[in-house]
């Protein structure tokens, strides 16, 4: 078999004295959607922050297509073809939707030394993208992010990843805050990404969403990977939930309370 797209080897991460990752090994293959599950504080966001250069790792190494890469900053990760949509969807509230979409990769119009942004093109693309992610309401692309609803903001972040298609797209809880139509927009986007040859890491607490799109499920608990090859087609939601919480069936039934089953 060829080298995986991403291979993280024995990665550990300390925040001060708190160990958020403990010897984690993790791979993503080409054209694969990996679902990353785990309870609150399991270390999912930390894992992908390390991978996208947002925080430095304490020990271990990262390989992209078999080549060792130092992720010293987000720029390194972007250069390696990794695009990330953070949980706290990192947008600049003062800037408009269009300006946020293209932040860091603004198209230029006219001679290069004039450094002039192609605002029209940006606005046009922004309008199209918003429709694609399922925002039906007509929001002008000049609207500052600060006056959008929670879900609308999330949708903008998604739209950004859709436009700049990278080798690996990381989505940290992208369906939080999203309504029915918008959620389906995201799931459709993920499937489309794979079909056009990209890989994805998909983090979500809503296991139903995960089951709908991923090829493989990885489960983390308290900083460690406790299962890394669960096939969603051959496993039940309940079984995965048990792996996530680390409980026996009985404990789980109790924790879920009387109403749920």
């Amino acid at each position: 078999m060829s080298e995986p797209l991403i291979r993280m080897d024995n990665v550990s991460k300390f925040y001060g004295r708190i160990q958020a990752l403990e010897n984690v090994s993790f791979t993503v293959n080409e054209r694969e959607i990996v679902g990353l599950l785990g309870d609150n504080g399991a270390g999912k966001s930390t894992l992908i922050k390390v991978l996208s250069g947002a925080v430095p790792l304490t020990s271990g190494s990262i390989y992209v297509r078999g080549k060792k890469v130092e992720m010293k900053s987000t720029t390194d990760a972007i250069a390696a073809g990794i695009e990330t949509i953070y949980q706290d969807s990192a947008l600049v509230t003062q800037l408009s939707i269009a300006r946020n979409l293209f932040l860091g990769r603004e198209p230029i119009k006219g001679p290069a030394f004039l450094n002039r942004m192609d605002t029209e093109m940006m606005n046009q693309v922004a309008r199209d993208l918003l429709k694609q992610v399922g925002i039906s309401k007509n929001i002008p692309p000049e609207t500052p992010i600060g006056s959008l609803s929670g879900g609308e903001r999330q949708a903008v972040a998604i739209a950004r990843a859709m436009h700049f298609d990278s080798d690996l797209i990381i989505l940290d809880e992208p369906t939080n805050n999203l309504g029915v139509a918008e959620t389906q927009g995201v799931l459709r986007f993920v499937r489309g990404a794979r079909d056009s040859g990209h890989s994805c890491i998909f983090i979500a607490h809503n296991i139903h969403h995960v089951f709908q799109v991923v090829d493989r499920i990885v489960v983390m608990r308290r900083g460690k990977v406790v299962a890394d090859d669960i096939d969603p087609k051959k496993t039940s939601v309940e079984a995965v939930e048990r792996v996530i919480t680390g409980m026996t069936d009985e404990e789980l039934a109790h924790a879920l309370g009387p109403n749920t089953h």
Partner: protein
Amino acid sequence: MLRRLIARPEFGPLILLVLELVVFWAINPDFLSPLNIGNTLAFTVELGLIALAMTLLMTSGEFDLSVGSVFGFTPVLMWTFVNGGLMPMEIGFVIAMVVAALIGLVNGWFVTKLKIPSFLVTLGMLLVVRGTALFITNGFPQRTWDAGGHWLAQVLVGDFYVGPFRIYMSLFWFIAAVIILGYVLNRTRVGNWIQAAGGNPNAARARGVKVDRTKVALFILCSTLAGFAGIISSVRTSAANPNSGMGYELEVIAMVVIGGTALTGGRGTIIGTVLGIFILRVMRNGIVLIGVPGLAYNIFIGAIILGMMALHSWLERRHHAGT
């Protein structure tokens, strides 16, 4: 059309400026005499150049307290070279400007690489630069009054009359700076980075924007324009005093903030700053003209700043409630 004008953030400062002009003019009609207008413009644009650069820097979330000292230091350095017979004026000018740029570079480096708040860095730099100006001159001002005929002096601040108005070349430098910096902030990629750097630096960094490099460049811009303004001022006033520019930093920041740029970064307006510059300078000029007693000068400046801010905030609120 009118509605869109009112909705703009620059509307408040505009009203203030108009109000101010009307009041002063009503009290003393000489206020709008060509002589006085030419006079006010001359110094206004010098401070204005600094305020424009500061607008960009503040939009990116930093500020620079050392501009006043650079304003004083740069001409002193240049004239020390020139008067000492070490080099012709052109080279002295270039070297002084390079040194000013270096000061900005150091500011930027401390702020971005060492992650020290710009308040402390530039306060420290203020003292170092001011001290150096004193030290190299031994406190003696440099003489500049033989520069008048030099072509460089002409280009920088040569004056001529347009009808009854005495216009200095520096006005064109100022207008050029307004156009260029306004264009950079609103129309270019770099402008987008500047706003993002001030609005949410982490988000900007996550998108691969070179936040640190942008900030360093703005620090350099700020120092360079402060030095440039200092040289212009020294040629125009025929004085290069190591103490000039004292306290300008606060006045410049006040201009920027009155114009509507956020003190915390992320939102900046060049047009607003231009209005802010005029609001403050016209105020200083008008106050002398209407004969406020010398000792009460500061009371008036302070009270007017407070009063204008109150009006500003009232306008803002009315405007929000109204639409």
